[in-house]
């Protein structure tokens, strides 16, 4: 009875994981196993809670329970506080999970005047002609410094810092930001 009462009224609180106690082990599935304070969690995923503002801070660790629901184990406040080997596991996982082609240079932007913009861009994944429908909504300025671009297929690209691009690219972009 008491247990049920607790289920109803238990308020979820932020549980910060102690960096020195976490032990992440990569699984073959691509997910992680986490050993923490005597408990072992399998199929653990990490999520950046503040992916744009501070990608190294507030990393949530969650596992899938029997009901196929993600349950949060806790939050790592700063991955730089983790031991070196643990930090590498976490960074590798996050880099793979959050991999996004970064636009480094814009060669040309063409407006076909039928609702589509074509960006001939150089990205970290290679050169690409990106078709953007409804640029007003799919060119998202984040924190006045980065741009998230969503193309007509729903794929995402990122410009992490506009000011670091070459002048010619910035000039072309300025018409849309």
């Amino acid at each position, binding site marked *: 009875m008491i247990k*049920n009462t607790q289920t109803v009224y238990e308020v979820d609180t932020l549980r910060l994981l102690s960096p020195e106690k976490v032990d992440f082990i990569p699984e073959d*599935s691509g997910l992680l196993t986490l050993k923490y304070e005597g408990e072992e969690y399998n199929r653990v995923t990490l999520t950046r809670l503040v992916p744009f503002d501070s990608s190294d801070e507030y990393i949530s660790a969650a596992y899938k329970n029997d009901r196929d629901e993600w349950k949060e184990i806790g939050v790592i406040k700063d991955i730089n506080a983790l031991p070196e080997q643990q930090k590498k596991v976490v960074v590798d996982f996050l880099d793979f999970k959050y*991999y996004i082609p970064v636009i480094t240079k814009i060669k040309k932007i063409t407006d*076909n005047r*039928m*609702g589509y913009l074509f960006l001939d861009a150089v990205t970290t994944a290679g050169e690409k002609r990106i078709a953007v429908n409804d640029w007003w909504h799919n060119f998202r300025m984040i924190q006045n410094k980065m741009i998230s671009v969503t*193309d007509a297929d729903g794929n995402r690209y990122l410009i992490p810092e506009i000011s670091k691009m070459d002048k010619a690219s910035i000039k072309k972009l300025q018409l849309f930001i």
Partner: protein
Amino acid sequence: MIRYFDRLTDAVAIAFADRAVDIDKLRYCVKADMDSEGCYYDVYITFDDEKLYILSGYDRLVRNKKTFDTQFDFKDYCEYDFCDIERLFVDRYQYTCRLIAKMTDGRELPIGRFSSGFSEKFEQFCRRFDCIKRGEEPDDSALEDRHLYCPKCQRKYPDPNRRFCPYCTKRSWIFKRLLGMFKDYKWQMAIILVMIGLSVALGLVSPYFGTKLLYDDVLTEGGSLYGQILLVIIAMGGFSLISTIFSIAYGIVISCIAPNVIHKLRTDIFTAMQRLSLSFFTNKQTGSLMGRVDRDSSDVYFFFTDIMPQCIANLIKIFGLVVLMLMVNPLVSVCMLAVAVIVLMCEVIWLRGQRRNWRSRDIARRGVNSVLTDALNGHRVVKAFARERQEMTRFSGRNEQLYTADYNLGRRSAMFFPVQQGIYAIFNGLIYSLGVYLVLTGQLQFGGLTLLISYFGVVWDPMFFFMYMGNDWTRCTDAAGRMFEILDSEPTVKPPEHPAVIPEGGLKGDIEFKNVTFEYEAGRPVLKNMSFKADAGKFTGIVGKTGAGKSTMINLISRMYDVTSGEILIDGIPIKKIPFSALRESIGVVSQETYLFMGTIADNIRYARPDASMDEVIQAAKNANAHDFIMNLPDGYDTITGSGGISLSGGERQRISIARALIQKPNILILDEATAAMDTATERKIQSAIDNLKQGRTIIAIAHRLSTLRDADMLTVIENGELKESGTHDELIRQKGAYFELYKLQSMSLKSIGIGEDGG
């Protein structure tokens, strides 16, 4: 033969054939766009009935006049036997995914990596692979009406419900299509053209009388018309008058035709919107759709009534002017035209930079508007948290950007125009000097010079018109393109081609879900292989946590969406074969979101059955427990609701919406949290009204408050899109399963706040 999802280009087909793959036996194909490191790469993954084939390399599209040729730079190839693969699945990350083959020996092999926008086709590919591996034939009926590829450039259509390729469609296509809408008025259009031509020609001849003819022939002694001033005045006046009459006439004809075309276009768009499925509206912002019907049609109207005639007139004018000027004196004319071109070139250069400023201004203006909308719509929250100052700062920031953009625009104009005027004045002076010299040396008559000067003043208008016409043309084709987007969109839920015959009296309401899976987004099933039955004439309650899939079931029963796999039957008839009219007449839905249209309360109640008598309206309102509050409104049933009308509370709106469903007298009544916004007493009253309606009617109700459903003949518990258990209240309580847990939790919550809950 491959029909879905990606096509093999000729070059890729050859590469597969070179590796002894029988292309004709391949079933489905998908193309991944990345290598394992996340670099762009083309990986073709396909299978026949025995093997999975993977070919990697780089596609190249080479334009060959009007068509595109493909090339493929081969990098890697491998194949796997079906018997070695247990299943294929998509492993999702934040912005990319991986296709994984789970091997029979337990290993998980990454087959390809791709951008997350392609996940839907990969999910469908996996499903078909598993199906064929099980020896079953996949059901592709849901894919048949989708337009996947542009036949011209072979690229994927961004929207499979619309045959529109942004890559190779030319802008002129829209204009041609718009012009096509005028084809019913071709004679009127021909008359307009003739009238424009005549009006411009007469307008051009008119200055000739006031300058060359007047000075050289009438005022000059010995001239052919010496002293006949009245004749010149009559000729000038007459030509101007006739030109004006033609101009007025073609204006009238155009303003008669264009509104007809725009009216038709607007009606077509609205009709097309009504035809489209719910998914179209959930993917678009209502504001932008409203803008399409309203603003876009105005832009098109303006172009055809104003810009088009001016364009034709200016075209004739500029051609006529050049010819006439050259006839008077080629040297001075060429100089004048050269000056015009130089001045225009300066303006073109200025304009190019200024467009950037306009665009910045437009973006800044939108920014100001969005902050304004945000702050005004959320004024309650702003005031509640006393964040006025914060909002003012936010607005100031945006307003500052707009100020800067305005300032840049104005400063650039202020700097440019005096320079341009100066250049013009210098060149003008030089040309006049040349003219005077020619007159003094007898190479040009005085009247000829004044005529040229007069024409030089006129030549600017058409030149500037064409320079600035681009913006109007863009606005018109943009607007038309957006309108055609709606016209060309096809509903995702289509009416049956061969509808079943529905017996008189409509559907009874035996509802059956057979292994139904449904996904709003590929790979994220909301309902998972669900089978469930609701008997006709019975009250079925659906219970579950938020997000369990209850409302989705309701959407599927009323066929707002089609199932991803499986089948729904009503009275044994597949839902896809039931005509929309029969389905909608038989099903009445009261949903969580209530919407009242502009009109009286009575009109809103009789929305589904406009022929309902006032007796029936009042009866329905009484049944829905709405009569009492309607009676207390000053205008009773004539109270205007909706935009600009009286504002009703959530519970009052909900009751009107229940009355609206009741008056339809549907055989199947669906209540989706219909009483959620009401207090317990009102809920009880409506509950008893619903109980009265139970006779001979199928009722399906979703409610969070389990007490609402306690009298249901059958309760179905849904959890994570799966059917967990079903039975009567007492049976489920005895089972002590998921329903029992939910019931216990609710009872305890009520007890803790001092409200007892009996039963159980």
